[in-house]
């Protein structure tokens, strides 16, 4: 029996995908769930897994080639390598016979031992990912133990794989970041061909810039109180969740709360009507090491607590950086946040992600001299100050509405009792 492998539906609006790499060669034994190939669309890159077992008998669409959704890209059969055009029916003869005692299929693979250096434990998933990703276990174990953990789990391995600098000789890692120019963007005089993701992003941005009358506003926000809470809970949070609590979740939470009062911010505009969204599906712009930009969506963000939103954002950023986003992660956003703080910029005027009507931008938050009013008079004091900006579609609403929204975000950031949002036991 042979089975055909087709280019899967990779999202509602995606018609074709480009195969970047085949993880298997003709003649390889395939198990259900094995990664077969990596495919790139204009929105996302992802691995496609086998849903049947057998031997890969034919690859019809090789690496670098594009196939329409539904097109046959390979055949899994009895493993006899075939020349293109050969008869499909000959691909397999007898159906695979299974013993009645084989009620479950036990995997025969081995991916190392349950205990690693210094007696550290490894989950089965971690062991498989380390072996498939070609990671150095000693290095990873040391890193995990430095963090005070006794166990290496899948998340730790995925983080290590995504943090690893891309080397041309590395084996095809199952969670490789999207290919393209290396993080060092060439030397002077080089011509860089943009990958599909960047080309499509470019087309969409140009279209949005051409058709939407953008207005940008920014407001100065005092993050001193947020910073105090953040610092006080930093270590407990890091220990509990394995990543640090940044300003972004506070801003995202404040944005969700402000949207409740200014719902037109969270809407779609089609030229004639503004459709307000029930949920806040918050897009978070993520830079892929200067190799493209994706905006994964945190669904129903307003239902999440500060901790919940922090974890959801972190998860989406991790998934994006390790190339593990699914098409549904990138659709359905109703408002977006662009965070450019890492490089110390003062403000950024972002382009709206149509058909959304606004996008928030945050930049560096740092100590600045500020005027503080007290009963004793006004004083100059060092405060943590940052800009929160918004580009909005002037057809959807006016400057006063946007300004009132920004002012509300500012008020929430500055005056909310953030301690209450973080459980004391963390």
């Amino acid at each position: 029996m042979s089975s055909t492998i087709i280019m899967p539906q990779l999202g509602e609006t995606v018609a074709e995908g480009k195969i970047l790499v085949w993880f298997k060669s003709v003649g390889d034994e395939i198990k259900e769930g094995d990664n077969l190939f990596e495919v790139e669309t204009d929105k996302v890159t992802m691995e496609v897994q086998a849903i049947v077992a057998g031997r890969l008998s034919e690859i019809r669409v090789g690496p670098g080639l594009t196939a329409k959704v539904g097109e046959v890209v390979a055949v899994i059969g009895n493993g006899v390598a075939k020349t293109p055009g050969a008869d499909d029916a000959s691909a397999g003869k007898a159906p695979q016979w299974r013993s009645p005692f084989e009620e479950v299929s036990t995997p025969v693979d081995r991916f190392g031992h349950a205990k690693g250096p210094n007696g550290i434990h490894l989950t089965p998933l971690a062991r498989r990912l380390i072996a498939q990703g070609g990671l150095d276990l000693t290095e990873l174990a040391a890193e995990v133990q430095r963090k005070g953990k006794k166990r290496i789990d899948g998340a730790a391995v995925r983080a290590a794989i995504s943090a690893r600098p891309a080397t041309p000789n590395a084996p095809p890692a199952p969670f490789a970041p999207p290919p393209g120019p290396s993080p060092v963007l060439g030397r002077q005089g080089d011509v860089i061909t943009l990958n599909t993701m960047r080309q499509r992003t470019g087309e969409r941005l140009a279209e949005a810039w051409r058709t939407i009358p953008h207005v940008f506003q920014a407001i100065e926000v005092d993050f001193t109180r947020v910073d105090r809470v953040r610092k006080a809970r930093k270590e407990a949070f890091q220990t509990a969740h394995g990543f640090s609590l940044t300003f972004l979740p506070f801003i995202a939470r404040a944005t969700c709360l402000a949207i409740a009062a200014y719902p037109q911010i969270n809407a779609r505009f089609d030229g004639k009507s503004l459709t307000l969204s029930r949920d806040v599906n918050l897009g978070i712009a993520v830079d892929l090491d200067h190799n493209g930009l994706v905006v994964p969506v945190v669904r129903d963000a307003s239902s999440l607590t500060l901790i919940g939103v922090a974890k959801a954002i972190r998860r989406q950023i991790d998934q994006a950086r390790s190339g593990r986003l699914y098409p549904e992660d990138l659709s359905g956003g109703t408002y977006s946040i662009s965070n450019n703080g890492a490089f110390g910029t003062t403000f950024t005027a972002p382009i709206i992600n149509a058909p959304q009507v606004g996008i928030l931008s945050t930049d560096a938050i740092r100590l600045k001299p500020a005027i503080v009013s007290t009963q004793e008079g006004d004083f100059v004091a060092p405060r943590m100050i940052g800009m929160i900006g918004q580009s909005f579609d002037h057809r959807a609403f006016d400057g006063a509405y946007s300004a009132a929204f920004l002012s509300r975000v500012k008020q929430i950031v500055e005056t909310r009792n953030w301690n209450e949002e973080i459980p004391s036991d963390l």
Partner: protein
Amino acid sequence: MAELTYRDAVARGIAQEMERDKRVVFLGEDIGKAGGVFKTTVGLYEQFGPLRVRDTPISEQAILGAAMGAAMTGLRPIAEIMFADFLAVCFDYVANEMSKLRYMSNGQLSCPLVIRTGNGGGVRFGAQHSQSIENWTMMIPGIKVVAPSSPVDVIGLMAAAVRDPDPVIFHEHKALYAIKGEVPEGEIIERLGTAKILRPGRDCTIVALALMVPRALQAAETLASEHGIDAEVIDLRSLVPLDTQAILGSVAKTGRLFTVEENPRLCGWGAEIASIVADEAFWDLDGPIVRITTPHIPLPAADHLEDLALPSAARVVETVRRVLNG
């Protein structure tokens, strides 16, 4: 779409099949004029008459014996055993007779019948009328076992059970009879052995059955909003055949598995699933498989004790949170 209770869905599911196929007959205690002790069969006697809708004496053995004979001779009976606990009274028919007939007769005879029964606790009926015995039935070779959690699945799975060529035990949950759900017009038919992913998620897989399904869903919402844990909830719907592909596919994605079972822990259905996943999906597991079950005790009749014994949404939240966030 019209809303229907789980209770009314039982009657509609039976009526759908009795209208379609004259060979479908229905028998049990007080199921006729009385409309069933749980009012699940109201209107069937009036619609189909005393020949096809038959009240029986209080004898589980008589009910299943008659149903089996009818099935062997060309009818498609649906038999009611009022409380699932009472399947023990007629277990010989279930475990030794109807389930072995096709095999023992080398395919000359078959037994296309459905045993409907009120399973599970939460309704203060005490230790002999509240047990969740789906695991008793799951263990018998030759019997199929389904347990719907929603009105629409009651109808669809009832149709699939009646049309199946072999005996099927259909566990209705007594504590779900009052729930409502949307049910489309027209014929509804499902496929046995198909689980439903009711809530997609990334961080862990929660597998549940019957009354535990709404509780698992409620827990998943709390886990998402209060703890940032994105749980995938699977309604198994059918224990035999078991949709292992749905479970294994989900675990391949999440790396973590929790079962929420109303049956007592020892040899509960989740143990079988844990065994399959530990075997086939070993290299996808990112931590221990955790079973959330009723403890191995006779179910108490006292309200608070019964509530404490059965897995609650709060217990699911607490267990998942503790295990995942440690």
